[in-house]
């Protein structure tokens, strides 16, 4: 790792600041909260601005296929900002995961994603880990797909679905128009990334990858590595918001942030968030560089950052006390995102178990 730069680059800092300013303008917590009462009006509008106007839809698509040719490092910067704003957009699902699947295919769909003409979602449960079990729909001799996959993220925002289907011992990937599937919204713990149950009943699709298991797993691995940056964003917002509040909030004639027990907890949390930041960055940098350490780095980042984001959100609720329990304060949006993110793409425990193989720390023989 000696040559990998772990510091923020100028390119990334510019991108980050553009995204942050835009979200400050266009991603109002009240509009995000309205998602919980079924008002999804913010989603399409915000995604249009981010995907098309800022060009984020094609961030990871090579220039020769119509994209920006940026790397995982820039995608991580975007995800950190999206996490910081609990932004309800399909960047992770379409511009990272579905895009990475399509990088292995020569489908024209990739260019359509890059141009934000289409938005895609890989049809797996959000909880699917890169190295875990994958769904596989039945495909008949006429190429018609049948089956249901539950708890799919990004499906509600997608107009095209990437569907894994059984193909001999392996997995093929088909692109199916969302209009040809039943996409049933799910009441989700995190309504800022609302899930859907996707059912296909004999729908036809375009075969995009005949032998696609590797691509699907790579896409989930990239998603997991970069989800860590989103988790850092969530954690940073929670930490900073809590610090700001505790400097203002007075009880017992003093700023609450001056009470040493809280200071020490915030100091520990700060150390955790800084560490999570470094772990997420290392995962992004090794992924971007195609470094052999990328797989370990991703597992480490997922084993670490998911718990830190949950801890930051939980500490934020506790230290805000009453006001942190209200619907009115945006904190609950972060708590729900953090908890859902902890389960997304494999729990920390699942990533630790995977890591045991990668680093030769085997489990007890039973």
């Amino acid at each position, binding site marked *: 790792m000696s040559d990998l730069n772990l510091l923020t680059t100028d390119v990334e800092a510019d991108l980050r600041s553009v995204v942050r300013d835009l979200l400050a303008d266009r991603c109002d917590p009240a509009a995000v909260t309205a998602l*919980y009462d079924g008002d999804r009006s913010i989603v399409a509008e915000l995604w249009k601005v981010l995907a098309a106007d800022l060009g984020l839809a094609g961030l990871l698509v090579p220039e020769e296929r119509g994209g920006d040719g940026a790397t995982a490092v820039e995608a991580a910067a975007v995800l950190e900002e999206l996490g910081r704003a609990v932004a309800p957009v399909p960047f992770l699902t379409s511009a990272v995961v579905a895009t990475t699947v399509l990088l292995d295919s020569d489908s024209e769909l990739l260019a359509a994603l890059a141009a934000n003409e289409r938005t895609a979602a890989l049809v797996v449960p959000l*909880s699917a880990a890169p190295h875990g079990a994958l769904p596989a729909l039945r495909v008949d001799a006429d190429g018609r797909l049948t089956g249901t996959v539950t708890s799919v993220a990004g499906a509600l925002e997608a107009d095209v679905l990437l569907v894994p289907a059984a193909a001999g011992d392996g997995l093929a990937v088909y692109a199916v128009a969302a209009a040809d599937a039943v996409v049933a919204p799910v*009441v989700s713990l995190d309504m800022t990334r609302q899930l859907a149950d996707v059912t296909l009943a004999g729908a036809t699709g375009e075969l995009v990858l005949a032998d696609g298991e590797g691509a699907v797993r790579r896409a989930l691995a990239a998603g997991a590595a970069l989800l860590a940056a989103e988790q850092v964003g969530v954690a940073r917002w929670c930490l900073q918001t809590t610090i700001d509040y505790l400097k203002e909030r007075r009880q017992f004639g003093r700023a609450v942030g001056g009470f040493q027990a809280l200071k020490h907890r915030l100091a520990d949390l700060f150390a955790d968030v800084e560490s999570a930041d470094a772990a997420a960055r290392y995962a992004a940098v090794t992924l971007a560089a195609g470094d052999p350490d990328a797989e370990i780095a991703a597992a480490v980042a997922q084993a670490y950052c998911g718990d830190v984001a949950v801890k930051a959100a939980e500490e934020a609720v506790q230290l805000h006390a009453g006001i942190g329990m209200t*619907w009115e304060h945006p904190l609950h949006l972060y708590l729900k995102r953090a908890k859902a993110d902890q389960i997304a793409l494999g729990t920390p425990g699942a990533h630790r178990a995977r890591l045991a193989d990668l680093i030769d720390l085997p489990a007890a023989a039973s």
Partner: protein
Amino acid sequence: MADETTQRAELRRRVADFLAAHDPAATERSAFLQARYDAGLAWVYFPPGHGGSGLPRALQAEVDRLFAEAGAPDNKPESNGIGLGMAAPTILRFGTEEQKERFLRPLWTGEEVWCQLFSEPGAGSDLAAVATRAVRDGDSWVVNGQKVWTSGAHNAAFAILVARTDPDLPKHQGITYFLCPMTDPGVDVRPLRQITGEAEFNEVFLTDVRIPDTQRLGAEGEGWKVSNATLNNERVSIGGGAVARESGMVGVVSRTWREHPELRTPELHDRLLRLWVDAEVARVTGRRLRQKLALGQPGPEGSAAKLTFARLAQQLSGLELELLGEAGLRYSDWTMVRPDKVDFTGRDAGYRYLRAKGNSIEGGTSEILRNIIAERVLGLPAEPRVDKDIPWKELRK
């Protein structure tokens, strides 16, 4: 012990006599409850004349069991937790004879439900910072201000209320405790939605609410002392709940574990076992606490028990979501409702996770409880106080 055995036998006899005279099947519910109160068989550790018989608190479970076994109606304690757990003992201790006469009987029978008007947006952990004003006007007080975190306010007939009666005094000295009529037209109750989606609590806006001086509890300016007595009761009742093994959150998660072999992993197994052990230890610790309380040896474990209860509820419910995985990403319903009662372990895992976050805030935050243990139990020095001797009105808010 011999004494308690005698008391217990005598109590059984009295309950049997009462049931013989008031057939539960044939007596109208509220008449039955009123008669039970008048017979001193309501809260038997209360004094005679106020629903009790001056018996040890340990016998209460016995009398409740005997009535339940006879199929008698109960006073729906879950619908009047604030009244029974907090208002009643405070009225008993600080009330005038007239106040006890007027309020305790309908409180116990459930005819009058109570709520609590203590916390304010600017006075959470620092309850002595209450800004709600009560101004004397002849034989009444006129109250203006805003209260929060009031459960059951929309069903309540009365509230226990603390308000500032003298802003020229230092903050702890200018507070008075009232029994506030919730039916006054100046009381405006608005649901306060919380992170679970529902509105279990309310905000209460008080505009020129009139309270007769006869409904002042304790002396003018004594409200801090009275409210502390109330809060101690709250903490004992919150911390001293469950008794059977695997009661509460640990039972819920253990059942999920048993019913879903396909979800089990080694790391979740050890985490669950650790929390199971902690929960079982908390149960035994609570059992010992109740034995102490029954002997009149109140220990410091009340605050410690509440700390542990909250931590376990949070860790267990968080673990359950990880265990459930995909199913943990789904929620039952975000629709805003006003639930009739709170059920920490009810609904789905997501609800339990979110609701448990309140356990370390409501009824005294875990931070305040740690201060209490450190200072009152361990005798460590108090926090430096800058606001103790300054007139309330001059404090920076």
